[in-house]
């Protein structure tokens, strides 16, 4: 069976986009030395806000904008807490993740008047590129058939972020802050400002990721619908060591493993095996790449 069809690529792409957006945000934080595990919660709040606003206004674009805003707002707690008050970023992020679960569940009842899942004809989803002129382009039209512009944006952000880090003065400063914040501070660089900005941008990207998930991948909100995607993004950031290209690669490995798993299930493998597949494949990929990584200094004879 040939599983690697254009349809397969398209499926991976869509499943990948929310994770990639969040992971790019996480990568930015990693580069300024902030370990951000609040991606899941910010994404979830993004999902809810996108759906709530889109349903009330009938505009997907407003939904996306509001989701980005919600992501930034949540990230503000992290930014102020970890940078200004020097709290532990991990504990604080666990707090905001939990807050997102509680808040979206609560607001789902009080704002959208339902629980579990909300979907409605009033809900405007993101336009599928297949329905636009893009759909007429050969190959690309097939690959991006059910993608939205947010998916394309997420892909474009990878080289953009890489270029920014390598060639923009602020990129250089960000990298330096991640490596040695004291050194950056001693040169009069506003370290706290850069770190806070990075956390806020990550919040915006997570909000966007949530909007894509809730208005692009599907058009609905469902409690805890992020279902661990923010955590996958965190793993991708760690695997990619904060480098956009490597982070993308990690996301692709994971997304492809998952989509591949669906197809293997079709061949009769138990669901439990295909559930585990992405994680096992990621672990194996890590082990294989580690063979080429230089041995760490020190260690015992």
């Amino acid at each position, binding site marked *: 069976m040939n599983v690697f069809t254009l349809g397969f690529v398209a499926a991976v792409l869509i499943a990948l986009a929310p994770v990639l957006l969040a992971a790019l945000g996480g990568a930015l934080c990693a580069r300024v030395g902030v370990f951000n595990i609040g991606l899941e919660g910010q994404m979830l709040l993004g999902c809810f806000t996108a759906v709530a606003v889109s349903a009330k206004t009938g505009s997907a674009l407003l939904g996306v904008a509001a989701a980005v805003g919600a992501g930034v707002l949540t990230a503000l707690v992290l930014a102020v807490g970890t940078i200004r008050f020097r709290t532990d970023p991990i504990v604080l992020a666990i707090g905001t993740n939990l807050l997102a679960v509680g808040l979206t569940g609560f607001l789902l009842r009080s704002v959208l008047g339902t629980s579990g899942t909300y979907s409605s004809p009033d809900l405007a989803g993101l336009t599928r590129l297949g329905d636009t002129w893009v759909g007429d382009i050969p190959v690309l039209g097939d690959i991006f058939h059910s993608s939205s512009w947010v998916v394309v944006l997420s892909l474009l952000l990878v080289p953009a972020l890489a270029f920014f880090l390598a060639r923009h003065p602020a990129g250089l400063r960000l990298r330096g802050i991640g490596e040695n914040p004291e050194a950056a501070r001693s*040169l009069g660089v506003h370290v706290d400002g850069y770190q806070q900005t990075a956390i806020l941008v990550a919040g915006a990207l997570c909000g966007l990721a949530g909007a894509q998930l809730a208005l692009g991948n599907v058009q609905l909100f469902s409690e805890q619908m992020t279902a661990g995607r923010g955590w996958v993004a965190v793993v991708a950031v760690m695997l990619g060591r904060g480098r956009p290209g490597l982070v993308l690669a990690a996301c692709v490995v994971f997304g492809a493993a998952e989509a591949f798993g669906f197809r293997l299930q079709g061949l009769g493998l138990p669901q439990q095996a295909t559930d585990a597949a992405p994680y096992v494949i990621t672990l194996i990929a890590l082990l294989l790449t580690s063979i080429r990584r230089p041995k760490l200094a020190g260690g015992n004879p």
Partner: protein
Amino acid sequence: MTESRVRLAGITKRFGPVVANDDVDLELRAGEVHAVVGENGAGKSTLMSVLYGSVRPDSGQILARGTEVSFDSPRAAIAAGIGMVHQHFQLFESMSVTDNVIYGAEPTRRGLLDRRRARERVAALVEEYGSPLSPTATVGSLPMGLRQQVEILKALYRGADVLILDEPTAVLTPAETTLLFTSIRRLAERGTVVALVTHKLDEVMQVSDRVTVLRQGKVVAAMPTTSTNPRALARAMTGRDIEIATNDQPSTVGAAVLEVTDLRTGMVHCDELVVRAGEIVGIAGVAGNGQSELVQATVGLRPSVGSVRIAGRDVSREDVRGRRAAGLAYVPEDRGAVGSARSLSVQDNLAVGHYRKGWLKPAVLRRFAADLMGRHDVRGAGPDALMSSLSGGNAQKVVLARELEHRAPLLVAENPTQGVDVGAIEYIHRELLDYRAAGHGVLLVSNELSELIALADRVHVMVDGRFVAAIDRADLTEQRVGEAMTNATEVLS
């Protein structure tokens, strides 16, 4: 050349109960090299940080060229022409020399980094300063001396004509120090002010024009260098006469406590190194020639091939634990990152390694810590205080106390007096000599030739990972060691 470039007037800075600077006046005149000396914790770094804008004084004024300025961040100080090289280098090790120099003041073209212009400007600076640096080299691969040049270039790139150097020679080799001083003098001749914080009084005499002495936050003396001498400076700093002990008592040499044979690791190839009970064996060499690697391989922190015997036992296949069990104590070079855990209490720092089996009784640990702290004169904190709250000299005393307490047949000590004041040096030297007198062996690796000459029974000179000479105490002079290094370097190159 008496024009005042910067003047600190009546600076007071408190850290809680500690008055780090107490109504301090300091005038820096254009074209002078101004030494600032004092004991550990006297307030030197604090004063310099005030000048550099990274610490805000509680009161007092800063006058730049006669007008009052206020530095609320290094950025403001940099803009006012002030540059600082910190004792612990503030560098991005993964980045190139160029990126390190331009960081925070990048040349841009259409909003993006202008790498070509950056490289050109850094290359020009490198040439002007007379440095062998390559602008494209990765900083992490450079030896300490060159890293320091990067730090100085950073300041010069920003147009600094006031250059603060906080203990710049602590990590330098004699050759690197000489080079640095030549550069300092050249900068001063061009009108730059150099403020030099140091513990080495002979350096003060050698390079400075004027000297200010701090004691417990106050200025206790300020004078032209020509009107003073190291002895007088030490007395001004500590309030007593300092008598640096030397190795002048014979001791009974016993069995070998360390035998290294045919050891290879990295660039190091050590044919033979033997330390016997009752002797201090020194290793001299320019940093980057393999001394650290040799020590790390010897103590088991670095993989190697070859044979290492400690107190007669073959420990070649053992890790640090096994070697310590065989009879090793070790004072590492980096007391902050390796020699202690800054976030644990002094008590825990002392107990680790001594108490590993069975039940720990808090009262016993406390007594153990209090006893060691008393015997080794660790000041300024109780056993419960965090390690990070100790001053450099006191932190070193804690490390030394813990290691000496093992009473191991072999003590390996790496730069044990780096960054500590004359009083502490006096104490550490005496401890090392006492350890030898008690019939133990000491392997002493030091960047300070004077220290080796004061203490060692025999000095091995290391160049390019190999021993090129072994000089016995009778023949031990700076000149002999220097010659050995130069000869070897010439032969090798």
